[in-house]
């Protein structure tokens, strides 16, 4: 049942017609010369929800966002945003969306106020209204005091906030966030998460790309895991976790000598080659009864344990079991930042 939900291919008509999709994409294909960045991606993002597009670097996340933001033309497939076709009704789509790119795309030489004023004026607001909107957003994002300073003097977190504010000037109903917290320290990251939750509470639909599994887990209502230009799984975070074996068995022997025995026992119990990190042995399990079996077998073998637990699978483990390789291609420092 679970796997049925998980691997359902998005076929027109299969969704309930009552469900309102802010973003709908079918069979997106995009090639850059020899490389195929997107190889038939389907996405369905419900209005008012947060949709997480999760995948490692180079999986095709940014390409998908750029197509949906009308910045890039797809080679095949079609997509609608707010009911408008991104290829033929780009101007209407642009009136509905806000985009925060992968790098804080603010004009560094302008002040915070000027950056927001620029967008407001471009959107056709009278000067007065644009100024009022700029002030309002700076206040919302805790930038009132630094509003008069050039953006190049801002910290990474402030720049990101200004970037997000800039994408909200026109009160978009649909917001694209391409790796919004990449390069932020843990505190700035949590602050940004809170801001995003506020936006969702106000009814904004968010399409979020991230290579941080905990981020998708924390923010998204639904997740599509993307790898090499294909959606390899989608569903709610819980559904994804349920798919790979609802739970993970983790065993750590008290000393290194016990490690081979633990590995052998876990392999036999789960029927899977376990993941070994240092002295920690983990494997996905579908039957909770393996825990007591593990206790018995290891006790009998005389292995002293430092740790033994059955826990919900993390999305890292989900990714591993879906692709056969870890999700993290980013440098180790970044992943440390995340878990810190």
């Amino acid at each position, binding site marked *: 049942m679970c796997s049925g939900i998980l691997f359902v291919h998005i076929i027109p008509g299969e969704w309930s017609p009552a469900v309102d999709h802010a973003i709908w994409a079918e069979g997106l294909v995009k090639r850059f010369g020899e490389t195929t960045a997107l190889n038939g991606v389907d996405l369905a993002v419900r209005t008012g929800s947060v949709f997480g597009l999760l995948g490692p670097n180079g999986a095709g996340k940014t390409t998908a966002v750029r197509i949906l933001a009308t910045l890039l033309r797809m080679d095949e497939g079609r997509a609608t945003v707010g009911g408008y076709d991104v290829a033929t009704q780009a*101007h209407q789509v642009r009136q509905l969306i806000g985009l925060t790119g992968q790098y804080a795309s603010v004009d560094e030489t302008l002040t915070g106020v000027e950056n927001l004023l620029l967008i407001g004026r471009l959107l056709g607001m009278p000067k007065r209204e644009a100024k009022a909107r700029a002030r309002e957003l700076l206040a919302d994002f805790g930038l009132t005091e630094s509003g008069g300073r050039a953006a190049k003097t801002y910290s990474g977190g402030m720049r990101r906030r200004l970037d997000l504010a800039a994408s909200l000037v026109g009160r978009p109903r649909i917001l694209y966030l391409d790796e919004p917290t990449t390069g932020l320290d843990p505190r700035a990251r949590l602050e940004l998460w809170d801001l995003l939750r506020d936006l969702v509470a106000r009814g904004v639909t968010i399409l979020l790309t991230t290579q941080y599994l905990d981020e998708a887990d924390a923010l998204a209502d639904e997740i599509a895991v993307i790898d090499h230009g294909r959606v390899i799984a989608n569903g709610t975070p819980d559904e994804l976790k349920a798919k790979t074996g609802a739970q993970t068995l983790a065993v750590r022997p008290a000393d290194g000598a016990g490690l081979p025995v633990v590995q052998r026992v876990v392999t036999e119990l789960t029927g899977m080659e376990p993941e070994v990190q240092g002295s920690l042995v983990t494997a996905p399990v579908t039957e909770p009864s393996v825990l007591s079996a593990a206790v018995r077998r290891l006790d009998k073998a005389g292995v002293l344990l430092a740790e033994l637990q059955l826990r919900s699978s993390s999305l890292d483990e989900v990714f591993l079991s879906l692709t056969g390789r870890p999700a993290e291609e980013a440098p180790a420092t970044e992943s440390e930042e995340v878990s810190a």
Partner: protein
Amino acid sequence: MTATTIEAAGGPQQAPDLAVRVTPLEGVRQSLTLAWRSVVQVRHNPWELGDFSIQPIMFVLLFTFMFGGAIMGDWQAYLQFMLPGMLVMNMLFVTLYVGQGLNTDITKGVFDRLQSLPIARWAPLAGRILADQVKQAWSIFLVLVVGFVLGFSLTGNVGGLLAAIALLLGFALCFSWVSVLVGITAKDPERVQIFGFTAMFPLTMVSNVFVPAATLPGWLEAFVNVNPVSIISDAVRGLLLGGPVADPLLWSVVWALAFLVVFAPLSVWAFKRRVV
């Protein structure tokens, strides 16, 4: 729900009352807003201001007093000869800011943001070029003021002066497309600068801006005489100092149009390759 294919695919109702396209008037207003932004950037970036304010002044002073005597025996005579060419050289260098600004926008992601807004596709470029015209006007003004203070005398008439300014601005408008192409294709803003020095510097130096072509060895003279920088310098010289201008003026316009016709489509092509 209506029966369009999109509705059948589970898409939502289209939001009503969204504009279908940008009107030309809105496009012009957006370009003006973006031009405003480029001018405000200068206020925050004294480096750039220094580049096109202090540099021209410095060059006029440097060439007049350092080389004037050696080249023409007396610096006053040299100032008369050199100043029109200086206006041309300056104009060419100022166009580099179009490419540099464009490149900064593309590499920093600002361009993506602009393209994701419901604005005219051409507004970001038009804004840049419009701002360039403001910078051009300012830089022409500065060179002329310094020239007049040092004793440059306008031997042509005021109509000639106005025509010279119009020619410089018009040529800049067309030549900007070279800068646009460099801005779109260069990896980063520094490379736009490097282009400026490796291509524009020799091109302006190997012209009749600083020395009369007749003093050069024959082969070099031949090149200098066909260099468009020399041709437009001759035109500006003629307009400011009087004398025959019809020929260089005509060829200046031809060169300007040639730059436009070759580099505008090339830029659009390169732009589509890089951005779309």
